[in-house]
Structures are given as structure tokens and as C-alpha cells.
């Protein structure tokens, strides 16, 4: 059973490697949204600094949402999903493997470039580790939750914007606590309370999201 988990993980990572755009695009999208803000809002350093945490987090959230849209779609289009559903291993495990592979390629890389974005927006260097930590926990949580939306809409021709619609409300708590953590860090106060809360969200998502997404997948496919 663990073997199937590892196989799916390996395959998805390999497919991702082959199509560099898979993991490169969300990254560039993220950096672009961040870069648009000084252009559209104001290039004044102190105003940027005040917005930095929020903007980076919104950009990350949107990047995750968009990238996740394709999580099951390409497998659906070429019939692989059908075959995955028919393997004897529990489907929620496979979903978890897919989400993990996807997160390694998008969420994790986001965390790696987040410092660049933070510097672009003038975020104090002291707050950057906290920003990265919240992104590390938060993007995984968001990926898991978005997987539910992606699974629900996989059979639809144009689910593109339906996924954000469905999953965004569920991301708002993560967003609020994560940005609060960064802002607290900017004023030098301890943030462990926020981080504990984010970790709790992650645990919840790890427990329930794969189950819900698996149920949604079965449903989406049975109509075909």
C-alpha cells in the first residue's frame, strides 16, 4: 500500500520534471502579482512595507489556487484517473500522494522564492523567516483543501474559476492567521501561538481533505 503511495508520488514528480512549466508557471505568476503592486498601488517603500505580508500571502494563495486547478484535470483527460480509481489501494492515499507531489513542486518552490518577493516589497529581514514558515505550513494546508475543490470540478469542462470559488472561503482563516503572524513578527512579538494554530489547521486538513477529495473524485467520475 505504501508502495503505491510512493509510486504515485514518483510518477507525478517525474511528469512535473518533464514539463517544467508545471512548476515554473505558478512561481512566475507569484512573482508577477507581487511585482504589479508597486506599479499599480504605490512605489513608496514605507507603504509597500506595510502591505508586504498581505500581498505576498495573497499572491501565494492565488498561485496555489491556480496551479491546483490542473491537479486532477490532466489525469482525467487522458484516462489515468479512471485507472487510478480502479487500483486496489485506497483512493485517499493516492490523492494524498498526488497533492504532496504537487506541493513539492509548487508550494515548496514558492517558499524558496518568497524571500525575493519579500525583499521586493521591503519587508524587514527579521520577519522573513516567519513569512517562510507560515508559507511552508499554509501552502500545504491550502493545497490539501483546494484538492477538494479540484476533485469536485474535475469532470466539468470549464471548472477553471469554480475551484477558487469553492475553496477560497476555506482559505480565509489560514490567510488571516498567517498574515497576523508576520505582522506580529514585524513588531518583534512572539508568534508561536499563530504558528501552533496554523499547524492545527494543517493536521485537520491532512486528516480530512484526502477523504473528502477521494469521495468527490468517485462522484465526478461516475457521471462520465
Amino acid at each position, binding site marked *: 500500500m505504501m508502495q503505491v503511495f510512493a509510486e504515485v508520488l514518483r510518477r507525478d514528480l517525474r511528469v512535473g520534471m518533464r514539463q517544467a512549466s508545471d512548476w515554473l508557471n505558478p512561481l512566475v505568476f507569484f512573482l508577477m502579482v507581487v511585482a504589479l503592486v508597486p506599479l499599480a498601488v504605490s512605489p513608496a517603500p514605507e507603504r509597500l512595507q506595510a502591505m508586504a505580508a498581505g500581498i505576498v500571502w495573497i499572491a501565494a494563495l492565488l498561485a496555489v489556487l491556480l496551479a491546483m486547478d490542473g491537479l486532477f484535470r490532466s489525469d482525467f483527460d487522458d484516462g489515468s484517473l479512471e485507472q487510478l480509481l480502479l487500483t486496489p489501494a485506497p483512493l485517499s492515499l493516492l490523492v494524498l500522494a498526488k497533492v504532496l507531489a504537487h506541493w513539492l513542486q509548487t508550494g515548496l518552490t514558492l517558499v524558496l522564492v518568497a524571500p525575493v518577493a519579500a525583499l521586493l516589497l521591503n519587508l524587514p529581514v527579521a520577519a522573513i523567516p516567519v513569512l517562510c514558515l507560515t508559507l511552508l505550513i499554509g501552502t500545504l494546508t491550502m493545497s490539501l483543501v483546494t484538492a*477538494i475543490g479540484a476533485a469536485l*470540478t474535475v469532470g*466539468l469542462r470549464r471548472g477553471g474559476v469554480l475551484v477558487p470559488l*469553492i475553496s477560497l*472561503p*476555506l482559505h480565509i482563516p489560514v490567510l488571516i492567521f498567517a498574515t497576523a503572524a508576520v505582522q506580529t513578527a514585524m513588531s518583534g512579538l512572539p508568534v508561536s501561538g499563530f504558528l501552533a494554530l496554523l499547524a492545527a489547521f494543517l493536521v485537520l486538513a491532512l486528516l480530512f481533505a484526502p477523504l473528502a477529495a477521494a469521495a468527490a473524485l468517485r462522484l*465526478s467520475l*461516475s457521471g462520465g
Partner: protein
Amino acid sequence: MMTLLRKLWAVIEPTVSPRNFHDLAGRLLPWFAWPAAVLLLLGLVWGLAIAPPDYQQGNSYRIIFIHVPSASLAMGGYLMLAACAVISLVWKVKTADMVARAVAPAGAVFCFLALITGALWGKPTWGTYWVWDARLTSMLILLFLYMGVIALQHAFDEVAQGGKAAAILALVGVVNLPIIKYSVEWWNTLHQGSTFRITERPTMPPEMYLPLLVMFFGLWCLFVAVVLMRSRHIIVQRERRTRWVRELIAEGRA
């Protein structure tokens, strides 16, 4: 646990076929529609014309007569949606999906109403239409959830599939309800804390809370009546190819 569920099911089962529910809803409908009409008329006249102005807020407080029932209906409606979701996912009852389709838009409308009335009330009391505090935000999330559920219900070519997809989302979204309810206690908010408790006497003067109570029950009756009516409509629509609906239509009763 399982046997308990089965026993419960044995009680519910006979009433939940679309046909029986259609009849049942038809019989229940007047029991909600008439009280709704009477209570709302009474409540509006009492609340708007008879109840005295508030010593602090003047007449603007009268929004409360719409605002509070709407807010509770928005949450209650979502709870109903979740209940329908469980019934349709666990027991595979077709009727539950039809009722959910009736509840969702009605709940969304009341959610919207609560937001609008709240915003309008905010201007005179807090000096602004909108603030981003916990209760207001979580209520906005509830509206988004309603919209997501409705979008999913209509997104699929096959009706039953859309119903199940929406049910899964409705269940996931239930986490938002306690957040709305307890946000005023968990966070410091601009918004009023709870004043009504089932166990305590309200702190409001009776000439204000009595009309509020009337409006509250009036709007709940209205909500149920609308849901019953729409469910009947949806049932007939969905079951139009069945023999019993054809007979119904032939008799001119649908």
C-alpha cells in the same frame, strides 16, 4: 451506532420519496404560509409604528427587526443544507437533494439581506458601512459558501451528480458556522455580543424584543413556506417523466 441509524431510517423512509414529500409539503404549506403572513404583518406594524424609538440610536435601530432574523436564517439555512447533504450522501435520498436546491437560494438571499441590513445599520452606529471584523467577515464567507454550493448544483450536466458535489461542499463548509456564532466571543469585535439566551431573560425592554420575536417567527415561517413551495416545484420538474407526475399534471394539480 449502525443499528440506531437504521432505526432512524425506518422512521424517516416512508416520508422521503419525492412523491410522498410532495404531498406532505403540500399539506404543511398552509401551516407555514398563513402564520408567516399574519406574523409579518403584525411584526412590521408593531416594530415600525408602535415600538418606541431607542434613546441612543433613534429610529435606526428598527433595522434589527429584519437584521437579526435574517442572520439567524442565513445560518439556520446552511445547517439545513448540511443536514440535507448528510441525508443524501449517507442514505441516498433523492428528495434531500431536491430540498437542498430549494434551501440554498433562499438561505443565500437571507444571508445577503443580513449583510445589507447590517451594512446599512453600521453607517449610523459605527460610522461606516463595512468593517473587516470577525463576525462580518465570517458572514461574508458564508455568502461565498452559499454561492459555491449553488454554482456546483448547476455545474453538472447530470443533475444528481451536481447535487452530490454540492453536498460534499456543504458539509465541508459547516466549519464556518461556529466561527460566525462565536466570533463575537472569541475575538474583540465591533459587533454586538449575544443578548438573547434561551436560559436568561433578555436585557432588552419587552416593547422592543416582543416585536423582534414576532418578526423572528414570521420570517422563519416564511422561509419554511418558501422552501416547501420551491421543493414541490423542483420535485415536479425533476420527476416530470414519472407516471405519478404525469397523472398529477393531467388532473391539473401540478
